[in-house]
């Protein structure tokens, strides 16, 4: 069933791509404008999506017909499980983007590490020590060694020692 949705999703994406591409300017001197490749990709999305959807529907019908013949109770497949926890990394990233300007990069990644470790039932002292040590290490490598201006944060007021 998922393939049907994926196929429909690709077809929609294809149509949106083509419509967007039509608004790109064309130059009279050029036979093939900037919209050519995006339009081809959009067309490919539509065709591929349609094939995926039809294929999946056709196979479901075939499988259903077979299973009903063999054993009618098996006609519905069990729903596939997908853990809700998979949203944790994206949430952590959004949290970093929103919070790092205020809290500073180092504190933000310490919090992310600590909470994520606790969520998977790490012992609290292990989580605390590892997250503090590792976030300091990452912060040190990137800001001191690679000279990346990681956000220092309003909270600490730029008081961290290794950045001038």
């Amino acid at each position, binding site marked *: 069933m998922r393939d049907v949705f994926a196929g429909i999703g690709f077809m929609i994406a294809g149509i949106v791509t083509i419509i967007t591409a039509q608004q790109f300017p064309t130059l009279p001197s050029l036979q093939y404008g900037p919209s050519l490749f995006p339009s081809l990709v959009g067309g490919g999305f539509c065709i591929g999506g349609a094939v995926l959807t039809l294929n999946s529907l056709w196979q479901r019908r075939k499988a259903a017909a077979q299973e009903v013949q063999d054993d009618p109770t098996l006609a519905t497949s069990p729903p596939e499980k997908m853990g809700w926890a998979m949203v*944790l990394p994206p949430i952590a990233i959004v949290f970093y983007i929103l919070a790092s300007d205020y809290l500073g990069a180092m504190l933000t990644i310490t919090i992310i590490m600590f909470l994520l470790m606790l969520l998977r039932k790490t012992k609290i002292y292990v989580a605390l020590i590892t997250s503090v040590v590792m976030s300091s290490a990452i912060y040190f490598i990137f800001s001191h060694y690679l000279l990346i201006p990681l956000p220092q944060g309003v909270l600490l007021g730029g008081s961290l020692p290794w950045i001038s």
Partner: protein
Amino acid sequence: MNGVGLVLNFDTILVILAASLFGIFVGAVPGLTATMAVALLVPLTFYMDTIPAIAAIVTTSAMAIFAGDIPGTYLNIPGTPASAAYVGESHALAKKGRAREALGINLVCSVFGGIFGTIILIVVAQSLAEVALKFSAFEYFWLAVLGLSCSIFISVGSRTKAFLSLLFGVLLSTVGLDMMSGAPRFTFGVPDLMAGINFIPVMIGMFALNELMSYYGSKSEKKTISVVDKDSVFHNVPRHVKRYWRNMVRGSSIGTMIGALPGAGADIAAWISYGVGKGRSKDSSKYGTGNIEGIVDASSANNSGISGAWVPALVFGIPGDSITAIVIGVLYMKGMNPGPTIFMDGSGLIYALFIVFILANLMMLPIGYMAIRLSKLFILTPSRVLMPIILCFCIVGAFAINNSVVDIWLMLIVGLVAYLLAVNDFPMAPAILGLVLGSVVENNFMSAMLRTGGDLTSFFARPISAGLGIAVILLWCSPLLIKAYRYQKRKSERASA
């Protein structure tokens, strides 16, 4: 001689050493792949000189592919997908108390495969480069199309999905200012996107964030080692090598060839070599019960595949697998365009690269030995502690390339899309090839059309270009041709019966 000087200095050796340990670690932890190791490394290599940067990538990938065998042997969980083909064999040996023997032969085959692939790389790349010097936009257009097509037809599973995954990559490659007209495409008013999609956040999203999300989406794991390993690592290796040296050569040859095909990397090389080995073995019934022969074939193949993938990457700028796709991105960032001129510019860079390859593979022997002795330490590292650290490294790494928050958003969005695609069995390798080769296809097409005034037949006007074009058409028709052949065969069989 220039090349030796570039490699044999303190900094580069130190980088190789550090990368070895990093590669072994990432490879040996189940759930972290060799590609992910390289993607995580890129933000750091961005700030290194070219040779240490490339050395770090070469060493990490080679070590990670070997180290993937360690958890495969002890836990029956492949550390990287490239070890998946033969975990059954090595784990069966481990259950018989021969874990270290299995890993010893794995290690020697990996080193042999890696060096074999490197020798082929040295021999073939140089002569291919001379041919490639004659190439123009027409040939590069077809070559890139051929590379993209290969990635669809070689991929395991649904070709429709591989095709859609590829188009996703190509679409990403069109973002930014158009080369010909200067018109912004899909930039949504974000100035950071004008120069095009930044490669590194995309890689981190596709290969690291995606894996992190699958880890959190799965049930928590419990890793316990129940096998005893009191045997010696290298004691039985000479005997096995003497008996199976043909398998080593065959596995390495297959691996190098498969690796050189765009879109097929070490994992597919290992599967195919394992299959070929099983088909040609005298005692194929022993396969699956802990057969050294199967390990030899596949373990030589995956490491030689890593080296083989560099052939098209260096000569044509067409990546042979997702790792070399990242490498090409790194080379471009360093202002070094992969292509035949790399062999002739006299900088000694290419020789330095060859030396790095040999060095990395030779260093695998002592470091691999150490890793085998310490394997419990690696594979019992709890993922629940490791994964949050990797996530934070991803965030800071994505930011570090341009010091821009837009890149973190980009990593997040691409990671989400990649996760959705991956859980629905879409392969990722075509997408990354699409991203790298999409602009190659488009730019060469446009400049060819500009030169000939929009005459499409010009793509078949030059001999090499026409040959490549026909190869592409044949590849696309191959499923039809195979069907027609089978139909004819069945028809004639029925007629004769």
